[in-house]
């Protein structure tokens, strides 16, 4: 019987039903409906546990009810006003009579009707929809929150999380909605790409909850990290993987979730460490800036010389020189050296002798020379000079002009014509 409603009667109803009879009605309505069955008249031979004549309602291989007896009698097996409801959309009614009816029993009359199932109601043992459930007559459908899409199973909500690329040298990423449960049926991939010369490392937060299995390694949901030919993971369960140190500047993190489970997921911070360069030795008389115990890719060092010294690089004198730590862990240049500044030969001054302050006639930074005027020339205004940090001979007042042995006052360079005796 496939009508949406109808009635069933025992044979010959309302006349007594035949003996030794077995009749079956199979009622089937469309999916999304249940079948309600009730009896408007019921008059069968009563028996203990309805062993003689009875009406049995079955569904899904299970006996829903077994009725016998007469409505007027005090028997526990009469359906009375009871409505039998099928769990699904099929119902079987079986009528059986035996051979020894001593009285006239009129049989039964029953009515059935299809009724809509509220799949979204709270009676379901498991919610049929991941996010939202919408009931309609004969069925239901699911929908998802914004940002999600309904999986092909029409029940779970998944997200599009492939091909996300991070290029900053540090950052944070996590499973979708973390710490709320992550989406089901998702295959996420996150790619981190930083400049060559840096190494990526991931630090998973302690709050880690990815569905696992007590005996099998991560059969349902898992996190995997692929970096430079290495694979880290799969990670699942409630224990954070902690630090994952890679040797690569590019990695892919994959996160798979199946169609079930309510787990909060994971989050991590990532950072980079540059390729390390060796700590250079400080050349004599040089200053190195900044001074660090370790130098990594992108770090730079500025060399300058102490006052009185000149920075030499490839034969040229420079004020400063910078080297950079390169991606391959080497420095961009070699360490320069600082050469003591040489002021060169002191000026030659007319009518003056130069006296060096040191026995070796040094003209290097710090050396001193003194000028002594010859004859009756006056003393130069600044007689002593020191080789200064700028490479110039400098007097005590900071002057860098050559001294001169000028005459003392009142001494012409020519004399007046001689007096002629008269």
């Amino acid at each position: 019987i496939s009508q949406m409603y109808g009635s069933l009667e025992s044979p010959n109803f309302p006349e007594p039903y035949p003996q030794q009879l077995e009749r079956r009605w199979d009622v089937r309505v469309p999916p999304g409906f249940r079948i309600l069955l009730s009896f408007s008249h019921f008059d069968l031979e009563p028996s203990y546990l309805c062993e003689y004549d009875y009406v049995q309602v079955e569904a899904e291989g299970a006996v829903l009810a077994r009725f016998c007896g007469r409505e007027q009698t005090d028997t526990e097996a009469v359906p009375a006003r009871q409505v039998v409801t099928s769990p699904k959309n099929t119902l079987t009614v079986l009528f059986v009579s035996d051979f020894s009816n001593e009285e006239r029993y009129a049989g039964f009359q029953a009515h059935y009707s299809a009724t809509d199932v509220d799949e979204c109601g709270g009676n379901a043992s498991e919610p049929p929809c991941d996010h939202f459930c919408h009931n309609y007559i004969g069925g239901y459908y699911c929908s998802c929150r914004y940002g999600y899409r309904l999986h092909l199973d029409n029940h779970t909500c998944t997200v599009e999380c492939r091909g996300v690329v991070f290029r900053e040298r540090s950052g944070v990423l996590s499973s979708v909605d973390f710490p709320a449960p992550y989406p089901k049926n998702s295959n996420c991939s996150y790619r981190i790409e930083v400049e060559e010369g840096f190494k990526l490392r991931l630090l998973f937060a302690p709050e880690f909850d990815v569905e696992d299995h007590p005996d099998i390694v991560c059969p349902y949901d898992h996190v995997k990290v692929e970096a430079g030919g290495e694979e880290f993971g799969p990670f699942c369960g409630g224990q954070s993987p902690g630090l994952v140190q890679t040797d690569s500047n590019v990695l892919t993190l994959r996160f798979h979730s199946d169609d079930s489970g309510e787990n909060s997921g994971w989050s991590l911070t990532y950072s980079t460490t540059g390729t390390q360069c060796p700590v250079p030795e400080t050349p004599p008389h040089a200053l190195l800036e900044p001074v660090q115990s370790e130098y990594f890719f992108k770090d730079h060092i500025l060399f300058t010389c102490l006052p009185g010294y000149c920075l030499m690089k490839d034969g040229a004198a420079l004020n400063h020189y910078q080297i950079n730590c390169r991606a391959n862990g080497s420095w961009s240049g070699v360490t320069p050296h600082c050469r003591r500044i040489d002021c060169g030969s002191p000026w030659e001054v007319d009518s003056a002798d130069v006296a060096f302050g040191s026995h070796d006639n040094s003209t290097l930074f710090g050396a001193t020379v003194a000028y002594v005027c010859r004859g009756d020339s006056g003393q130069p205004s600044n007689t002593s000079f020191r080789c200064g940090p700028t490479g110039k001979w400098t007097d005590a007042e900071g002057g860098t002009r050559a001294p001169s042995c000028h005459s003392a006052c009142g001494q012409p360079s020519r004399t007046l014509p001689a007096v002629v005796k008269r």
Partner: protein
Amino acid sequence: IVGGKSAVSGLFPWQALVSVEDRSRVPQDRWFGSGALLSDLWVLTAAHVLRSHRRDASVVPVASEHVQVFLGLHRVRDKHRSTSRSVDRILLHPRFEPSNYNNDIALLRLGGRVEFSSNIRPVCLPPAARQDLPVPAPDSLGVVAGWGVFTPNGSASSPLRSDPGAAADVLQYVKLPVVSQEECRAGYAARAVGYNITDSMFCAGFPEGGRDTCVGDSGGAFVVEDEVTRRWAVLGLVSWGGPDECGAQRMYGVYTRVSRFLEWIQNQLHGPPQE
């Protein structure tokens, strides 16, 4: 210079040409004088060379940017090849009296130091004057140089101050004896009244005239050689003279007596003495 001679280079290495162009006046006023190099930064000259010619009686120096100093100069036409300096400070003596040229002395601080050479050398300052012995003493023989109006033959009839004639191209010099204050005052008194020869002045020249300083020589050094050290010191600065021609009889040239201003000069050059 009247009755003098042309100098040769290096004879007066302290001699400075002080050129003034007073652009504050309309039309612009230009004149020049001389000065004496005291060091590589300071030049001594007469105050009236640097006084702005204002209608009122105030004593105001010309703006320092209007003054140019030429050193090591022999021929005026070689000015552009000589060492020149701008002036960054003009110090007129605070008691300079423009009515009678009393205390006619001033200092110039150059805009930059000069290098000494055979043609650029400083002159010495005189010893301090004493009450009983004026410096210079009468009859001392001094020498004055300048590029002012000149007559080499010493004609008493020229040049006139009202028609000064030509300025010298080559530096001229003349030897002049110092005359006593009495003789100087008497000489001027014989000609006219009202000339005030103060103790801050001295006179030099010959009674018969013929040799003198003249217009354009102002500020130049009257130098006297010390007999012991054989060094020349600036004892006077060319200041003023009589109203008629230069080199007139008994109208001696009047000079600022530098020895009376030694303390002022030292204070300006080196600052006041520490207490």
